[in-house]
């Protein structure tokens, strides 16, 4: 279901002071896509995602989900609507005294799901998240990854059209994160559920987000297809996030001069890298030594970075640079190096 936020903003009153958690923002999320919001803590992404199920009331603006303005619903209607918007959390937020089964049963009770079919439904959900044998285990006895799987099963129990993920993998180790992201990807593909992920981890965005918004200080700085945003970052913060995955740094002792420079280039396709480098060696009278190189897949599309040091005549270096600039699929990256 498509989600439309129109000129929403959120201002809190904190000890008489006004705190603007979210500046006026408009955003449309298409049905069936995985939309990511990335930002450091305090960027306002938690507030933004909570506007979608109205856990937070917007100070201004409207929230439309599948054509319905949520701010205009009665309490009862809103509750029913929320059953169609699943949500999972960083701290999982399971009911500790209940078993896995009872935790899922709770939301089925909330939707008055037919009693006779509950057991079958819960079994089906647990199979989906890979916890078929854990129904009777008390939720406090599960590992973090298992808890999040129960959280996902609970969020999916009432056949939602939308799944909101609030830092859903931030409390998990890298391997568990990967497996949860895989599960989310599968849910998106198989069930056609629109997913909104908020996170401070690039890992999450590059694995699953079709489109991404980069947030800072209560606003979305830039937004677009994930690959485009991270191959051509415009804002400092976006560049920081790219830098975070590639982790390229110019060696400390390096001092740039006209005859001695560090150049970082990015490849927008997979195989170009090696051939291209050979070409450079052959065609330029320069000393080229590689400092760092890495290919990452952003939503299954490769984005390679290569950092090298060139020494030689200034004119030759300039010729190299303009050669790079004229080559398709390869770009110089100004902000690294």
């Amino acid at each position, binding site marked *: 279901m498509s989600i439309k936020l129109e000129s929403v903003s959120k201002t809190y009153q904190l000890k008489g002071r006004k705190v603007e958690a979210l500046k006026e923002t408009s955003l449309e999320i298409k049905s069936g896509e995985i939309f990511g919001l990335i930002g450091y803590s305090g960027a306002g992404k938690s507030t933004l995602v909570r506007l979608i199920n109205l*856990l937070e009331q917007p100070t201004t603006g409207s929230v439309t989900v599948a054509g319905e303005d949520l701010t205009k619903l009665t309490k009862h209607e809103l*509750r029913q609507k929320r059953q169609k918007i699943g*949500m999972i959390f960083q*701290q999982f937020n399971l009911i*500790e005294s209940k078993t896995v089964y009872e935790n899922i049963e709770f939301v089925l009770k909330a939707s008055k799901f037919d009693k006779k079919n509950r057991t079958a439904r819960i079994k089906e959900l647990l199979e989906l998240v890979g916890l078929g044998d854990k129904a009777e285990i008390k939720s406090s006895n599960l590992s973090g990854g298992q808890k999040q799987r129960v959280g996902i099963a609970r969020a999916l129990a009432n056949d939602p059209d939308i799944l909101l993920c609030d830092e859903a993998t931030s409390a998990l180790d890298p391997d568990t994160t990967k497996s949860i992201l895989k599960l989310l990807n599968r849910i998106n593909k198989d069930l056609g559920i629109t997913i909104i992920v908020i996170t401070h981890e690039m890992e999450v965005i590059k694995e699953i987000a079709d489109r991404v918004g980069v947030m800072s200080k209560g606003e979305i700085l830039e937004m677009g297809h994930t690959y485009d945003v991270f191959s051509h970052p415009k804002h400092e913060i976006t560049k920081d996030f790219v830098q975070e995955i590639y982790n390229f740094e110019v060696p400390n002792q390096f001092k740039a001069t006209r005859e001695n420079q560090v150049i970082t280039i990015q490849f927008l396709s997979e195989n170009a890298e090696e051939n291209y480098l050979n070409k450079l060696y052959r065609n330029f009278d320069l000393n080229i030594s590689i400092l760092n190189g890495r290919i990452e897949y952003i939503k299954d599309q490769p984005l390679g970075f290569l950092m090298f040091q060139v020494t030689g005549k200034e004119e030759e270096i300039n010729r190299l640079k303009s050669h790079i600039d004229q080559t398709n699929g390869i770009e110089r990256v100004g902000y690294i190096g």
Partner: protein
Amino acid sequence: MDSFSQLWPILYKALLETVQMVSISIFFAVLLGLPLGILLYITQHPLLFRIKSLNSVLGWVMNIIRSFPFIILIVAIMPFATWLVNDSHGPVFASVALSIAAVPLFARLVESSFNGVKDGVIEACIAGGASIFLIVTDVLLPEAKKSITQAITLTIISIIAFSATAGVVGGGGVGDLAIRYGYYRYDTLTMIVTVVVLIIIVQIVQWVGDRLANRAEDK
């Protein structure tokens, strides 16, 4: 009193009176205090049913009742208690004041029992489209079962302590026996025996309460 045989019938009667007063009072403390405690909690919680004004008024009333020294509370509510039970002395009469004192105590304890439930859990329930009623009955109460059991234990013990003062209105009970015979009449035997009996009662209540609380958690 010179011997235990003389003391026994009086002590037995006092024990029954104590049991009667405690039973009536804890019954009403839970009956009224539990919903009040829930109301106190949900009216302050931003995700549940926040009504600041109602919460302040409720809290204010609870605090006023709890501020009264028990003996003054007894005297202050005498006309009301007389009207209510159609009597002006005895354990049932004393139970009115005891209940009134115990309700706000228990309500506050219930309110703080819910603080053990993480806000995130409540948020998840709201996000799942659950009603406040379902959240209270199916999440808050089961999650707080252990601390509510402990709150009942604590309230019973407080009522036993309060009930010593109930002698003023002829409530009787073990505590009253200790004061009237042991203290006013310098009757050392009665004093010692009644205090020992009170110690034993409190220990038993605490022990049973702890057992039940642990079982509530293990479930």
